[in-house]
C-alpha cells in the first residue's frame, strides 16, 4: 500500500466568472514512511492539493487515495488517519497550550498520555509554557504546538502545508530535524514548501508550477537530470549584466540568485567560451565559475523547457 496515491486530479476555481486552474491533472504516489515534498512558488496549487487530500475540498476530476481510502467515498476513515497542519496557524488562540492539545486529543477520542511518546520531543520544548495562551506564543512555538496537535492521535500520514513559511532559518532547520525524527516512527509525511533549499531534506520531491508537476523524483536525481553546464557570475552591476546577457543568442538562461547570476549556454560550451563572450560584449565581472546546480536551478530549467 502507498501512503498517498493520486491520479489525474484537477481543480478549477471560478471567481466572478473568471476561471483559475489550481490543479491541472496531477498524479503522484507517496510511499509509506517517506517524506514527500511538494515544492513550488505561491499560487502553484500546493494548498488546493493538500485540501483535497485532507478531504476538505472536492476535486473536479481524478481520484485520490490516502492510506488506501478514497478521498470522496471514504473521507470518514481518512479523517481518522491523517494529521493536518494548515499553512495558517489555526489553533484556538484564546485557549492555553495544554488546553489546545487536550481539545484535539478529545476530538480524536484519545488521551494525551497514550501517544505522548511520539510528540514528546516536540512538546517538551513548549511544555514550560503550557499554561500560556496559544495566541501569546512566538512563531516557532506556535508551530511546535500545531505539530503536536496534528500528531496527538498518532496519524498514519501527516500533511504539512507550508510549515516553514515565515519561520526563521534556525527554527526551520529545527523543524526539519523534527520531521526526520518523526519519520523514525514510521510516519508518512507530505510537506509543501516554497523554499527550494529545503528539498534536500525530503526523500522525494515533486516540483509544481501552475497546477502541473514539472518533475517527481529524489532530489539528487532531479539534480542529475540537469545536463547543462551552469555558471555563476558575480558582476559589479547585476541589473546591467542581466539585461545585456539576456539579449545574447548564445545564452540559454540567466537568472539572478541572490548576489549572483546563474547562467546556462545554448550550446553546452566550456567556461573559456563564456569568458570570451563576456569580454567581447564588454560585460564587467569580478568572478566567474562553473558550479553544480541546485534544486532551484533545476526548477528554473524545467519551467523554461515546459514553456
Amino acid at each position, binding site marked *: 500500500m502507498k501512503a498517498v496515491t493520486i491520479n489525474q486530479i484537477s481543480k478549477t476555481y471560478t471567481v466572478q466568472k473568471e476561471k483559475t486552474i489550481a490543479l491541472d491533472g496531477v498524479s503522484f504516489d507517496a510511499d509509506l514512511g517517506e517524506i514527500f515534498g511538494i515544492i513550488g512558488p505561491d499560487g502553484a496549487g500546493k494548498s488546493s492539493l493538500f485540501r483535497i487530500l*485532507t*478531504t*476538505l*475540498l*472536492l476535486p473536479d476530476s481524478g481520484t485520490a487515495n490516502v492510506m488506501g481510502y478514497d478521498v470522496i467515498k471514504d*473521507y*470518514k476513515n481518512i*479523517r*481518522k488517519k*491523517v494529521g*493536518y497542519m*494548515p499553512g*495558517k*496557524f*489555526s*489553533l*484556538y*488562540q*484564546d*485557549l492555553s497550550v495544554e*488546553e489546545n492539545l*487536550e*481539545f*484535539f486529543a*478529545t*476530538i*480524536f*477520542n484519545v488521551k494525551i498520555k497514550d501517544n505522548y511518546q511520539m510528540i514528546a520531543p516536540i512538546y517538551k520544548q513548549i511544555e514550560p509554557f503550557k499554561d500560556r495562551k496559544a495566541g501569546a506564543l512566538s512563531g516557532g512555538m506556535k508551530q511546535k504546538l500545531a505539530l503536536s*496537535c496534528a500528531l496527538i492521535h498518532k496519524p498514519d500520514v501527516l500533511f504539512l502545508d507550508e510549515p516553514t513559511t515565515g519561520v526563521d532559518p534556525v527554527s526551520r532547520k529545527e523543524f526539519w530535524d523534527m520531521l526526520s525524527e518523526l519519520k523514525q516512527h514510521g510516519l508518512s509525511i507530505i510537506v509543501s514548501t516554497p523554499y527550494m533549499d529545503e528539498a534536500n531534506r525530503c526523500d522525494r520531491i515533486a516540483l509544481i508550477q501552475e497546477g502541473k508537476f514539472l518533475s517527481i523524483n529524489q532530489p539528487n536525481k532531479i539534480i542529475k537530470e540537469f545536463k547543462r553546464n551552469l555558471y555563476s557570475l558575480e558582476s559589479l552591476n547585476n541589473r546591467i549584466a542581466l539585461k545585456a546577457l539576456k539579449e545574447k543568442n548564445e545564452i540559454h538562461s540567466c537568472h539572478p540568485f541572490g548576489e549572483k547570476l546563474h547562467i546556462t549556454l545554448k550550446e553546452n560550451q566550456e567556461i573559456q567560451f563564456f569568458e570570451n563572450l563576456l569580454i567581447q560584449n564588454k560585460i564587467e565581472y569580478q568572478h566567474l565559475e562553473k558550479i553544480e546546480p541546485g534544486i532551484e536551478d533545476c526548477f528554473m530549467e524545467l519551467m523554461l523547457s515546459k514553456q
Partner: protein
Amino acid sequence: MKTLIFLLEKEFRQVFRDPAILRMLFIMPVIQLIVLPLAANYEVKNINIDIIDHDKSDFSAELITRLNGSGYFKLKNTPGTFEEAMKDFANDNADIILEIPSNFEKDLVKENNSKLFMAVNAINGAKANIGASYLNSLIQKYNIEVRTEWLNAPEQKLQKGILLEYSNWYNIHMNYRNFMVPGILAILLTMVGMFLTSLNIVREKEAGTIEQINVTPIKKHIFILGKLLPFWIMGLVVLTLGLLVARIIYGISPLGNLFHVYLFAAVFLWATLGLGLLISTISKTQQQAMLIAFFLLMIFILLGGLYTSIDSMPKWAQIITWFNPVKYFIEVMRMIILKGSTLFDILKHVGIMILFAIFFNAWAVLSYSKRS
C-alpha cells in the same frame, strides 16, 4: 458524549475568557431592561400648545388655566394672530394651536353654542393625534362643567346618549410597563441568542480553526450541538436575570406558572440559537453574519407586536408575523406573566416553536459542510 462535554467545556472557557461577551451577556440586558421600559411609553406629555385668545373673557381664561393644569399641555405662547402662531408651527415650537374666537363667552351663554378652532402639527403623527384627542376630551369636560355650574342646567340632561363604563382586565391600571417589560425581555433574549451564536462559527472560520476541526472525525451534529448548548444555558440565565429585574424593579411577577415561562423560553432559545448558527454557517465573515442577524432582528422587533399591535397591521404584514418566532415569544410572555395563562393555553405556541426549532437546526446542520 465525552466529546460533546469537552466541546461544551471549551466553549464555556472561551466565553468566560472574553470579557466583552460576558458584559454583553449579563450586564447589557439588565441595564436595558432597567432603562428601556422607562423610556418606551405611549403616554404623550409635554404637548406644546399655542393659544390665540381673541375673547379674553372669564370663560376663555378658565379654559386656558384648565389646559395648563392638566399636565399634558405646555402653554408655549399666546400670540395675537393665527399667522404669528403659524410661525411657531413652522419652527416646530408648537404642536397644537387653539384659537378662541371673540364672543366665545357671549355665544356660549346667550346662544348655548360656541366654536373653537384647533390646528394640529401632524409631523409627529402619534403626538398630534393623541394631543388632539386629549384636547378634545378636556374641552368636552369643560363644556359639561361650565354648563352644569354656571348655567345651572342638570348634568344628566346635557349628557345625552350612551354612557360607557369600563374596566381594564389583566393590567388593571393600564400600567404601560407591565405590558412592555415582558416584551422587552423577549427581545433581549432573542438578541443575545442570535448575535452570539451567529458570530460563533463564523469566528472559527475567520481564525481558521474550523479547518483544523473539519479534518477531524467529529460528527456534524455534535459540533453544532456543542455550539448551541452553551448559549442555550446562558440564555436561560439571562432570562432569570431579566425576570429578577422585572420583579425587583417593576414589581412584575408572573401570574401564571414560572415553570411555563422557562419551558417556552427553552424551546424558543433552541429555535433562535438554531437560526443564529444557520446564519453563522452560511456567512463567510463576522461582518456578514452581523448584518444578516441585524436585518432579521429588525423585522422580528417591528413585526413582533412589541410596540405596535399586530391586529392593527395590514393583512399581509400579519401573515409575515406568523413566521416570526419572536412574536410568539412576546405573546406567550404577556400571556403567562400578565394573564396567568396555563400550559394548555400556550400549547399551540409551543408546538409552532418546536417546528421553528427543528427547521432552523436541521438547516444549520445541513448547511454546515465540512468540505467545500
